């Protein structure tokens, strides 16, 4: 974040200087040639030159479906060859790219913006109506261990990388309508270039942390018998009382598998996008970009909900990811089956013991009772 802000500040500072430094360029047209519009006919011809049939300005189908069928067709129809000595050598001007570009800049950007705005509105409304979901009887101060250091570091690594990617990704997607009016084109150009490099660089780290996440949490996230009741009770957010759950409840499990599966889709499509040297053509890239963007938007929108529930939305929840310990009353309320297990196995540490393990001297240890009755 800090770096992005710095980038922007620099961009703003430099944009004026840069603009004044560049001498105005003379159009590169030989004298005596009518420069009115010499290429329009030629251009029209070229657009038809990709050997895939008629260019249809108004395409009626669904973009993704079209892309799929065109990828199919481009493999069958013999192509002419342009000077490009690589994949897509049969494409001289990618006329169809305009449809993808239009989709990206209008449909995708606007729906993404709306979705993002919507989730914030929903959450703020929810917070106003429902407030922080309290623990009945308050917090006891007695704690149980929920996550190891390694598990928390895995979680936060994924979170940090995800946030960096989300922010840079959103700058790239929504920058034109939102940021250019604010900062101007030069500053945004810097920001976008920086974001693109940063985004590409952090992408693979997302996959790595995703795999770490998969290894350390998968077993506890397998669905089991009692999970359906949780769903029927609306996860405890609707109505009174908390819903029953094991170490992870059904909502958490579903979020977990969303992260893993959608995350894998994002990672794979991202890797295809970032390494264009494995024989994929423009059509595949366009398709992958749509997959990448849509799945990422889903994950971003839901992650806002996750962040809310993990922090201000639910009393005592953040503690678990901060220190690795949660209040036993929180465990009983949100994960009653796991809580019961903790009681039976005598895994509860007293408030004093907990304070000690957090490095507070014995005499200053005070149980977190401020919310208790």
């Amino acid at each position, binding site marked *: 974040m800090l770096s992005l802000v710095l980038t922007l500040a620099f961009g703003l500072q430099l944009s004026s200087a840069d603009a004044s430094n560049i001498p105005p360029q003379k159009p590169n047209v030989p004298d005596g040639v009518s420069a009115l519009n010499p290429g329009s006919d030629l251009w029209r011809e070229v657009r038809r030159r990709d050997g895939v049939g008629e260019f249809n300005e108004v395409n009626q189908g669904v973009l993704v479906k079209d892309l799929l069928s065109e990828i199919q067709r481009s493999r069958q129809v013999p192509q002419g060859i342009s000077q490009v000595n690589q994949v897509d050598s049969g494409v001289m001007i990618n006329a169809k790219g305009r449809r993808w570009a239009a989709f990206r800049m209008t449909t995708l950007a606007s729906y993404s913006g709306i979705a993002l705005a919507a989730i914030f509105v929903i959450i703020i409304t929810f917070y106003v109506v429902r407030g922080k979901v309290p623990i009945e009887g308050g917090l006891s101060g007695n704690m149980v261990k929920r996550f190891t250091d390694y598990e928390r570091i895995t979680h936060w690594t994924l979170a940090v990388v995800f946030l960096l990617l989300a922010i840079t990704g959103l700058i790239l997607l929504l920058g034109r309508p939102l940021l250019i009016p604010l900062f101007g084109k030069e500053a945004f150009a810097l920001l976008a270039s920086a974001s693109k490099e940063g985004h590409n660089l952090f992408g693979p780290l997302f996959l790595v942390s995703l795999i770490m996440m998969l290894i350390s949490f998968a077993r506890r996230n397998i669905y089991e018998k009692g999970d359906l009741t949780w769903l029927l009770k609306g996860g405890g957010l609707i109505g009174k009382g908390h819903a029953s759950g094991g170490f992870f409840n059904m909502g958490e499990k579903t979020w977990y598998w969303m992260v893993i599966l959608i995350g894998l889709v994002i990672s794979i499509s991202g890797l295809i996008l970032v390494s264009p040297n494995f024989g994929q053509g423009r059509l595949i890239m366009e398709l992958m970009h749509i997959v990448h963007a849509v799945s990422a938007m889903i994950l971003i929108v839901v992650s806002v909900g996750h962040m809310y529930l993990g922090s201000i939305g639910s009393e005592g929840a953040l503690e678990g990811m901060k220190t690795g310990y949660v209040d036993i009353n929180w465990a009983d309320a949100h994960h009653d089956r796991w809580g019961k297990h903790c009681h039976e196995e005598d895994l509860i540490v007293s408030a004093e013991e907990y304070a*000690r*393990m*957090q*490095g507070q*001297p014995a005499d200053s240890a005070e149980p977190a009772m401020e919310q208790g009755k």
Partner: protein
Amino acid sequence: MSEQLERGLETLRGEIDNKVKAFFSSCVRCGICAEACLFYTETSDPRYTPIYKTEPLRKLWENEYSFWGKLKSALGMSQAMTEADLADWEELVYDGCSMCGRCSMVCPVGVDISGIIFKVKHGLSQAGFSPEGLVGATQRAVDIGSPMGITLTTVQAMIKHVEADTGLKVPMDVEGADYMALLSSNEIALYPEYLESLVKIFDHAGVSWTLSSDAFEATNAGLQLGDKSIAGQLVQRVVDGAEKLKVKNVISPECGHAYTALRWEGPNFIGKAYPFRVVHILELLDELKAEGRLKTSGQESERLTFHDPCSIVRRGGINAQPRNLLGAISGNFVEMADHGNMNWCCGGGGGVSSNERAHELKLTAFNKKKSQIEATGAEALVTACSNCRTTLEEGVESNEMEIEVLGLTEMIAAHLEERPAS
């Protein structure tokens, strides 16, 4: 600021040398040292992290030697060290550290953490923040000559018993002897078999030796307290005794901190090199064995394991000798998983065992040793430090473990080859 606090801070200032500067400017607060410390691993209390125990000295260094500290004080923004900065560390440094030095072995940037903790102890002792038990022991050592209040009369009584039991003479105040032996308080009060073993072994090997009536006590409560001037006083007694008898060598008893005090720190405490050599009893026995003067016979069939005394092995460099000696008399010797330079402390070093307040914590820390011993399946636990030995016995007893605790020197004495009658 009280006079005592000022004295403590002044002492700490005097402790800031090139090592301290190198150490504090290279520490990156990774916390790896915590995993090496049994007071941390057995309590999960992060305050027992070794480098955290050096905080008073680090704070002083930061305030008065670092760029930011100097800048702050130039701007009048620096916060002076208070009593609390020292008082809060008394428990960490005296109860929660046995000076075992395991942390110093694992630090990736090479900080000798226990070396700095000793410096912190020096400062705290001068500021009056030391445990009563240790201060009392030190006082007795200065006044009476022994931290346990043992006098020459007690020693003479023991000598009488030993002479009666062995039929051999204990040489006392023999001028010009090759070796002058010393005893630790524990060896006088609890383990008279140590002296008995010395008599037998030296008779067997034909060693010219003596005890001194002026300097028989080897322990050094000043070292445990961290008070360097008292530590120097106590070392000086031994040096005077040895010089008076004109001996060539002084034998440090098994006791670990006595060895550190005499062999390594002593010359620095008193500010001059010795006119004699200091040798640890295990070193001497190993030398005698190598020269063929010490011959053993028979082997223990019991499964034995060895507890490395930290001050003798990790911080004393006597690692191979006890293993050579044990190898000669045992046919069934097993090492603990972490042994030698990376052994785990018994929990009673560094004055912890003389500090009654630390009793509970010491027993908690002993859990490490307990699981280590149990993993070997040994029937007897051999060690070579009377302080380790009492701590181990205490731990074994309070955990109701069934294992015998033995001293290495007396085991050697029990296996001496019968000399052909001359």
